[in-house]
């Protein structure tokens, strides 16, 4: 086989692989959409309180929020995204939130979760925020001592639960 044919074959192989990934992901979106609450779109992050769906965090709503960033102390990588404080202000009247109100951020695929108080979230210095991961999912990161290293971060967050203490 000539070199030219080999190169064409390689380019074709790359195109096929990309198409297969996008096709399978689209299929997965359809399957997930069937299983989820009808008011949620694939990719949305639901916010529940006492089992009731209060809001669905989606990318369109966050587009006009200011992005913030900080460099994590563990690996020196820049974490960039949206403060949870600003996200909650987008969906709720946060002045009614008590400092002790708990927010549980969880990831079903990682089997991880963390509870943060509104007091912790509302302090901008704590940088409690969603960082956009490489594959487009959200990762909860912060400067808080209990959430400042990779093992403590909650990757692939897919649910937020608000709990009255």
């Amino acid at each position, binding site marked *: 086989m000539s070199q030219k044919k080999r190169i064409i074959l390689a380019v074709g192989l790359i195109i096929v692989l990309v198409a297969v990934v996008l096709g399978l992901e689209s299929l997965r979106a359809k399957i997930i959409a069937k299983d989820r609450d009808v008011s949620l779109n694939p990719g949305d992050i639901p916010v529940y309180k006492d089992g009731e769906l209060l809001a669905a965090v989606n990318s369109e709503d966050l587009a006009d929020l200011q992005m913030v960033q900080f460099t994590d102390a563990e690996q020196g990588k820049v974490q960039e995204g949206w403060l949870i404080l600003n996200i909650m202000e987008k969906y709720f009247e946060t002045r009614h939130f008590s400092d002790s109100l708990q927010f549980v951020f969880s990831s079903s*695929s990682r089997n991880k979760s963390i509870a943060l108080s509104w007091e912790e979230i509302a302090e901008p210095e704590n940088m409690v925020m969603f960082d956009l991961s*490489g594959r487009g999912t959200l990762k909860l990161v912060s400067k808080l001592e209990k959430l400042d290293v990779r093992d403590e971060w909650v990757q692939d967050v897919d649910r937020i639960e608000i709990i009255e203490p």
Partner: protein
Amino acid sequence: MKKKYFSTFQLIVLTLFSALIVAAKIALRLPIQLPGHSGLFWMAIMIVATRVVPKKGAASFVGIVSGIMATFMGLGDFGSLNTLISYSAIGIGVDLALLLLGNPENLVVATLVGIIGHFAKFLVKWAFGAISGAPLGFVALGLARSIISYLVFGALGGLLGGLTLLALKKAGFFAYLAEKK
């Protein structure tokens, strides 16, 4: 006595390339908020390694050894198994691409090898995410953006590797290396 596939010298050289990948992954932090940007130096090192030790399986060896090193150093966002397999996948991807395309001193070949090798890593990460039930991309076209980023940085890394090979050849490095073997 049966002749070994890789000489001791070649094994040492390949292991050094593996260590270089891990060191570069830790030390070189590009201020780019794009997925897969480490492919720039990763694929360049891989391409150079495959020409310094021009044997089938050299890239796989580098991939697996760098994967083991990275696993023990706790690198990667998605756990040790993911790290080991994704690092190994790059090496295996590069070897398979070289089987099809041949000499990486051709810049087009080096670029394509870079793309295929780096995309193999993306496939592993994506497959792990899909199998573990990771949520779909939050941002519309998040996955497409990620794919494009992996392909571009893989291509740039492959091209950089190809250019490095040409520079090394011009400097007479491979002739020098042949004498040392």
